[in-house]
């Protein structure tokens, strides 16, 4: 196989985009039009900011209620403002809900966006929009599942444009893939039209709930099934097997003459490196963290996931997504509090969230990482301002609060304003595309850089404006 002479702009590791395409498994003769167009992808005209080296997304699956979290409305009628009281934060003039006491002490670190808006009340449609910065490219009248026509997740775009060279994946998702109760996979969390090879590495967790107090867990263990050696296979045996495999392939004396399948070797090497590098394995092991810190993050799945996210970021994974895990009763899994909103928020949603999120900010700050680590807290939508007869709040895409911190974001501010009931933006409405443009720009990628779908159609990464007031 010979490589295409590059006329593209080299990426930061000196490999041009075209080179990557070649490595990506396409022989030059096999280049097809979409590939040709991909090779000519436009790197964008908007100069990126580039103050963030990495990003952690905390995704509150289900949709957290804005008025009960970061946008309290004490002046609103009781059926809107609900049962929670606002509390002061350490930044004067900024108040958040009382069940976020730890986060209230961190307000100087983050910016609250109170006017984020999009037009869907469907979980999966909103999630695609928030997780990719782009609306779903089709008309959806109900829940949808992941499809190869979806836009790629932020992490998948990074894997496509700026893959890690190290023994680490570019994007990791934990503690599980985001799925509906019927098992359908949410769109927006994978490679989408770039292809499944850009999916993040999915890490799953195993945990036990405390009998005495089911809202707490003990022994959270994270599995990287793909990176875990099977029972009976030690590192030593894996090494032997690798040697055997290489001998067998050498003896078959074919590979060098069948260039096309040589690409597989690159992945195999990366896989062996992932499996045997102590650096990689350590990045995935929480055991090395002090007990005190584990306590600080909270002994629950979200807290421990935040801790693992920090470990992975520190080790060099550029994008980690933590999904809120389905939890609570079947009547109200995750943040989807259609029933007993206040009970669920109080007993098993806000407290772990408060702990994990605030610990993450604190920990990143203490390690000097917050200045170049962007943290984004969001859900697929907000919740309705009227409490329904079941004491719950329903889906509401028109307004939600998003929190951003680190990586160049100026903390201690509120951007945008919702109306008096938090039903609609009142000032500076922010679209998911604006958030996307800001995320990409902070990460050093032009938001108008183009990626090409399977039909050869070019798309800008996002259609939105960088939110300069946040910086």
């Amino acid at each position, binding site marked *: 196989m010979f490589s295409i002479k590059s006329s593209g702009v080299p990426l930061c590791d000196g490999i041009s985009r075209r080179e990557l395409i070649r490595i990506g498994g396409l022989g030059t003769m096999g280049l097809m039009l979409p590939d040709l167009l991909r090779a000519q992808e436009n790197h964008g005209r908007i100069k990126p900011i580039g103050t963030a080296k990495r990003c952690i997304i905390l995704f509150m699956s289900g949709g957290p209620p804005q008025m009960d979290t970061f946008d309290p409305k004490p002046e609103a009628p009781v059926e809107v403002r609900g049962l929670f009281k606002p509390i002061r934060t350490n930044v004067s003039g900024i108040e958040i809900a009382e069940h976020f006491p730890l986060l209230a002490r961190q307000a100087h670190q983050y910016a609250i966006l109170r006017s984020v808006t999009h037009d869907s009340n469907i979980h999966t449609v909103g999630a695609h929009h928030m997780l990719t910065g782009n609306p779903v490219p089709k008309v959806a009248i109900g829940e949808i599942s992941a499809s190869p026509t979806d836009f790629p997740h932020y992490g998948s775009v990074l894997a496509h444009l700026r893959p890690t060279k190290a023994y680490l994946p570019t994007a990791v998702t934990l503690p599980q893939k985001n799925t509906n109760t019927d098992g359908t996979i949410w769109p927006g969390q994978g490679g989408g039209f770039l292809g499944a090879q850009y999916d993040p590495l999915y890490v799953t967790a195993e945990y036990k709930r405390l009998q005495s107090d089911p809202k707490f867990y003990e022994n959270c263990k994270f599995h990287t099934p793909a990176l875990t050696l099977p029972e009976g296979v030690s590192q030593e045996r894996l090494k032997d097997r690798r040697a055997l495999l290489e001998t067998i392939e050498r003896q078959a004396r074919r590979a060098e003459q069948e260039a*096309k399948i040589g690409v597989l070797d690159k992945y195999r090497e990366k896989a062996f490196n992932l499996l045997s590098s102590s650096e990689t394995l350590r990045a995935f092991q929480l055991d090395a963290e002090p007990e005190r810190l584990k306590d600080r993050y909270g002994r629950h799945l979200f807290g421990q996931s935040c801790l693992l996210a920090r470990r992975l970021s520190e080790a060099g994974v550029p994008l980690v997504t933590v999904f809120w895990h389905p939890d609570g009763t079947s009547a109200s899994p995750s943040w989807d509090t259609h029933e007993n909103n206040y009970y669920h928020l109080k007993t098993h949603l806000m407290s772990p969230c408060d702990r994990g999120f605030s610990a993450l900010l604190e920990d990143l700050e203490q390690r000097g990482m917050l200045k170049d680590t962007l943290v984004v807290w969001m859900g697929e939508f907000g919740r309705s301002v009227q409490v329904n007869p079941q004491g719950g709040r329903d889906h509401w895409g028109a307004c939600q609060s998003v929190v951003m911190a680190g990586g160049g974001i100026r903390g201690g501010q509120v951007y945008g304003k919702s109306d008096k009931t938090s039903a609609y933006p009142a000032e500076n409405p922010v679209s998911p595309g604006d958030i996307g443009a800001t995320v990409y720009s902070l990460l050093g990628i032009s938001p108008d850089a183009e990626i090409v779908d399977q039909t050869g159609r070019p798309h800008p990464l996002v259609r939105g404006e960088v939110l300069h007031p946040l910086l």
Partner: protein
Amino acid sequence: MRSTLCTIFLLGILGVLAESVSAQVSFLNDVEPILTRSGCNQGACHGSQFGKGGFKLSLAGYDPDFDHESIVRMVRGRRVNWVQPKSSLVLQKPTLTVSHIGGRLFTSDSSDYRTLALWIRQGAPRPNPKDPRVVQLLATPERRVLHPKERLTLRVFARYSDGTQREVTAHTRINSLREAVATVTPEGLVTAKANGATAIMLRYAGLATVAHIAIPYAPPTALKGFAPQNFVDRFAMKQWQELGLKPSETCTDTEFLRRASLDLIGTLPTPEEIRAFCADKSNNRRAQLVERLLARPEYADYWALKWGDLLRSSRATLTTKGMWSLSNWIRESLYNNKPYDLFIRELLTAQGSTFSQSPTNYYRIASNPQELTEATAQLFLGVRIQCARCHQHPFEKWSQRDYYQFSAYFARVGFKASGDYGATSGEQILYIKPNGEALHPKTGERMEPTPLVSGNAPSLGSHRGDAQADRRIALAQWLTKPNNLNFAKSVVNRYWGYLLGRGIVNPVDDMRVTNPPTNPELLEALAKDFIAHGYDLKHLLKTIATSRVYQLSSLTNANNRTDEAFYSHFLTRRQPAEALLDSVCFATQVPEKFEGLPVGTRAIQLPDTGVASAFLDSTGRPARTTVCECERVSEPSLSQVLQLMTGEVINRKIAHPKGRIAELIRAGNSPKNIVEELYLVTLSRYPNLEERKTALGLFTSSKSLQSAGEDLLWALLNTKEFAYIR
């Protein structure tokens, strides 16, 4: 002195005269080409759906009236300054006289500038519908053989509706489709780079054409020692000779057995089959093998999987009962070797219940005229018409009118709920509504049902579809007419791509002028042969599989090493996800248990992708949400590699107490037998001497037979030779 002044004066007059008599600048034929060629109206710039910087143009100029309006009337006419043409934004921006994010596109002394300025001075006239239209693009030369480093200047001419012709090279967008073979400058200067063939794509005024460039691998010579088996070989050979390509050797018998078994029935050969085939000394053993394979029931399973992918049979869209109904119909059609034209006619014209009239489910998956238009065009004609839903296709002649005229065939398809299985059963009845029309989205005009006629396809004739009747019948009749070669070409190209690793048109479902076949004569001959044999899919497979082209080794020689387009050697490709899982199950002798299906159900027999399997997902099983062949991923990925190395499925099976290793040991086999057996069940061949030695050494040094066997089986399952069809 006097005469000089006079001359200057005269020249001045002449200059003015020359300008005033110069022809009226045509928006369609002069202005729009400048906007297109300069890139103003491309998708990344003002041609974007939302425009750029408040200025929006139609993508590649497909809507001249809109563009004129946008330039002349919007932003209160600031883009065009009648008093001072030079101050027009439309001249200042592209020359960077004022800041322009798109940069400098031309200078103020260029002919483009002068044309635009003259157009403004003439009053910036509207697009005149009476202006001649471009009807054809011609490349000169149309095809040329070059030597590496040789250069060639391409010229492009447009033929207009009034019969005139003019050179349009300067305003044509020119791209090489394979830059490794030949590059081309925007001005049309082609430079030959490396051996192979490429097309240079030329686009002007919504039309596209190509010029063919070939750079031979060696001086063209007659091929000796290659005995063609059938017409496939003759057409391939003709091309090899022209390109100076030397084909690889014929593959070995065991290679052929494995290749044909995987390709035709998605199944590895058993050790017994391998031994018997090696012992077969008849001359036509390969052809007989192909016959035997096509007669096996796995044929229907494996090809039902492929057609299930294409037609997107899935419980997620059809309900479980609807999905089984469609999947069973597909499988039965293949089992009975239903002629392909009949298969598609039944599919397209079905009416009634989605539970009992299986093919009606096609209309549930693509559930509106737009989706049906796109799916039908791509599946059965290989035409990707999607682009034309919103704008002119950027690489083909298809316009929005073509799109909506085709969609008119589906405008009267209706569904109603049925009560037969209860109100919540999900059963639907397809019926033909008495009315329903497709309208042009811009003009609102009612669209006549019209087929997508490209190349030499027959025009509609009487296939407009009666207003009272089911329009789909007219469509199905047109589509499956024996002289509609494109219908046959689409499917033979797919099948060729499945077996040879690359379509003659590639991607296999993207047939258009600007994506020409690498061997047009071969494609046409395959299509005609297929039609002549009654659209017999098994005959098609037999024709391909018994050709010598299909039987070439995957090992290359010095001459054909870089060829990936002309089939001078076999192109390796990974086993499809389902076949790969079945191969693992077969090699380890531990079947997979799929939820809701009996033990022993193979992965290639799964009716849809609603059956959970992490192995299949990470090895590229498609979710059946698009009709694009690209949905099935065969490119290697990290998760696929990890699945085979540390995946739970593979390691559990290798170490299974009733698995292959345990059983071989229990039966008292010697290490020598175990080694041989493991090679046969994974790589479908005997180990060579060196391989035997290595493997036996492993058995001597290991702590147990079991662990040595496990390690060897693991290594074999992780070889590229195992995962690939080659």
